[in-house]
């Protein structure tokens, strides 16, 4: 795939290395001459030194031929504008933006950014997840090896997608204790429908856990 990477971060070296290693064609736009030089020397890729927020800089690359634009600068506004221009002016198929302020993720998604990456949001969700599973563990009878708590994320191919909890033939000794949907935890009722990307906290005896997991896959 043709990928346009816009970055001022030194750590972009590793992203470029991974993508080049997978056979993708990378082009870099950066305001940082050191990053330009190191990526050129390492991967011999087309590079434009300049501000990607400026259309004339974008047009120095083959932007109309790009499959993906990755906006990875430290300036949220620039990442948004680059993705908007890529989508609306140059008909790029897919855009990925770093969103430093997680409060703006939904706004970015509404304005032409297909995938938002936010370090703060990822760490926040990990902490929340950790909190939830810690809380669950707290209420389990201590030292009982027979009870297992497992977290399962439902994919688009899951066989229980759009099914209500009561419709799923769980084995005895097994319940879904909690569903985490869009970062919010809820206690499911029998009528709760399972959706794509739901995280199910499954509590079961060790004897039936495997059976329960295969139901959710």
């Amino acid at each position, binding site marked *: 795939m043709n990928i346009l990477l816009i970055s001022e971060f030194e750590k972009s070296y590793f992203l470029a290395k991974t993508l080049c290693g997978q056979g993708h064609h990378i082009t870099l736009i950066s305001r940082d001459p050191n990053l330009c030089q190191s990526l050129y020397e390492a991967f011999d890729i087309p590079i434009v030194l300049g501000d990607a927020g400026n*259309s*004339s800089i974008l047009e120095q690359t083959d932007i109309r031929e790009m499959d993906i634009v990755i906006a990875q600068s430290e300036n*949220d506004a620039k990442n948004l504008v680059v993705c*908007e221009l890529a989508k609306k002016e140059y008909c790029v198929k897919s855009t990925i933006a770093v969103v430093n*302020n997680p409060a703006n993720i939904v706004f970015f998604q509404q304005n032409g950014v297909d995938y938002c990456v936010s370090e703060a949001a990822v760490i926040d969700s990990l902490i929340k997840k950790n909190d939830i599973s810690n809380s669950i563990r707290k209420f389990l009878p201590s030292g009982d090896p027979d009870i297992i708590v497992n977290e399962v994320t439902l994919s688009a191919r899951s066989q229980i997608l759009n099914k209500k909890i009561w419709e799923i033939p769980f084995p005895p000794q097994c319940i879904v204790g909690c569903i985490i949907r869009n970062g919010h935890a809820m206690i499911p009722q029998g009528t709760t429908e399972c959706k794509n990307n739901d995280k199910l906290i499954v509590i079961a005896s060790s004897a039936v856990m495997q059976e329960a997991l295969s139901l959710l896959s």
Partner: protein
Amino acid sequence: MSMFHKMKKPNIVIIGCGHFGYPIVQFLLEKDIRLTVIDTNPDVFAKIPLSLNGLMITGDGTDPDTLDAAGINSADAVIAATNDDAVNIMIAQMVKQRYHIDSVIARLYDTSKEKTYRELGVQVINPVMLFANACFQTWNTAVNEV
């Protein structure tokens, strides 16, 4: 019926008080309006007289928390006047979409982006093109007078 109507003062929020935004703030200070000024650099507020009828907020204008603190919900008009085109565009879109304020003007230097953002409903003003237009009109008038 009362002969006297107390008119509500228009509430204008201006984001960016640098070399472009500050003269606008100065101009608006002389008008009978309520003014809120937002800038990331608190030092810029030292230039603004204490007689300002409004608020000075230190913060990032692309952060909804800063806009909320500035009472953006009650603004009649918003001017995005930072020195960064991308920031001005993002603010204008955010204010329109999230806070439903129609009167939003963004300063833009890059003429190539103007059309795209006008099509998206963002009202942009390009000071360079305004100056070029004024020069052209002055020249045109002088030629016609000869």
